[in-house]
């Protein structure tokens, strides 16, 4: 195989129509999808030999820890940097994540994911109006559970594969629920757990999840998202029942 065939779903702007464009690139060993996009940027000529605008995409770390280069590769949401050409069937198809507003070509606006994190207060509140000193100590077993969830890079693959997560819907998605659990498990972060349960009960909250369990299958960091969703469903359900009598 001397050439690599690449089909890219392109779009010139947020409201422009999308179209497919084919590229033929010389084969080299050990390429990843990002290097193909870099080759196009260097010489933006499509398979018909026409000069075109370079394909717009986002990438950063190139080692599957930042989540910026998430796109749909051969029908599956994943990172372009860890998608190795030698392991992909050809023609390789690249599409933007369609659960997020498209900015241009493969570049999407994933800010909905970060808004979801602010909704569930995915942080640890430290200090108030004065220095509160050291926080409580944590057990190693608890840290080990938290570690799994701390690997989330908000890449959007779980949301892209989720049938309940839509472009215009208000579901916060699996990643934010995993982060809510992460910070609830943190000894200091757990102070905000009531706020997080409330946020998960709000419209677009946890119970939009219909247990299709695609998220756990597509998560590149293999985060046990389905057990986070189930754990939070348990906690929120009890919190809601308790609220009826306590509040």
């Amino acid at each position, binding site marked *: 195989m001397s050439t690599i065939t690449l089909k890219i779903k392109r779009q010139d702007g947020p409201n422009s129509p999308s179209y497919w464009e084919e590229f033929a690139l010389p084969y080299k060993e050990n390429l990843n999808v990002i290097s193909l996009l870099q080759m196009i940027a260097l010489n933006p000529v499509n398979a018909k030999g026409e000069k075109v605008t370079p394909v717009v995409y986002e990438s950063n770390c190139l080692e599957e820890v930042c989540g910026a280069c998430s796109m749909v590769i051969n029908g599956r949401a994943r990172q372009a940097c860890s998608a190795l050409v030698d392991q992909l069937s050809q023609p390789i198809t690249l599409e933007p994540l369609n659960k997020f507003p498209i900015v241009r070509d493969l570049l999407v606006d994933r800010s909905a994911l970060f808004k979801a994190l602010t909704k569930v207060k995915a942080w640890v509140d430290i200090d108030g109006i004065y220095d509160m000193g050291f926080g409580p100590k944590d057990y190693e077993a608890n840290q080990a559970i938290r570690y799994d969830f701390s690997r989330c890079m908000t890449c959007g693959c779980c949301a892209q594969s989720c049938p309940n997560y839509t472009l215009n819907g208000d579901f916060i998605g699996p990643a934010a629920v995993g982060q809510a659990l992460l910070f609830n498990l943190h000894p200091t972060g757990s102070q905000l757990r*009531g706020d997080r349960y*409330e*946020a998960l009960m*709000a419209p677009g909250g946890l119970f939009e999840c219909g247990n*299709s*369990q695609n998220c756990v299958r597509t998560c590149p960091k293999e985060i046990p998202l389905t057990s986070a969703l189930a754990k939070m469903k348990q906690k929120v359900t009890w919190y809601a029942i308790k609220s009826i009598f306590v509040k």
Partner: protein
Amino acid sequence: MSQKESKLEFALRKLQSLSGFLPLCVFLMFHLVANAVIMISPGYYYKFINTMATIPGLIVIELVIIFLPLILHGCMGLYIVLTGRNNPRRYPYFRNWAFLLQRISGVVIFAFLIYHVLTIKYGSDHSAATMILSLNAQFNTTWSAIFYVIALICVSFHVCNGLWGFAINWGILVGMRAQKVFGYVCIVLFIILLIFWLFVMMNFLGLSDGVLKDLFILQINGF
């Protein structure tokens, strides 16, 4: 609490999940066992149905335990179906297919129940004889027999897969191993339930000419 957002949707979704199990799933089990009485003998079943009809306040029980939960579960279910974007061709996993089939079976059951309730429960008169005769007639008509078999497959699947979802939504199944194991249990339950339903259906289908004649005489005499 900082944000005060409406909890209505949360409450409706929880009620939708709850009503699927209690009372609807429990009612369905009762419905199955009650109809399985025909396996003892058609005469015994006839007497049993007539006894059931004498329960005081039956209409209130039907309204509270069957109709209202059914309407809530069905309408909220249709809303959930319409807000989803199914993708099992791109992500062809067992659970993703089950997710789609849960929605398809739900819609089929919705249509079936309208037909079933209108023809059997509110068919003509309320007599047990008419009910048995019309079921027998429906099962002996090819298109409605096929509709019943499809509906029975859908109901058995919807209940068993729904039980799995219910167990997650109410925090009974948390771990991934537990979810997987209970998934297998639900497949076994589905097969058992479907076979049981089909057996009951066969008993209505294969009523002897003598029994049908007796029922017909009872029907024209207004029993």
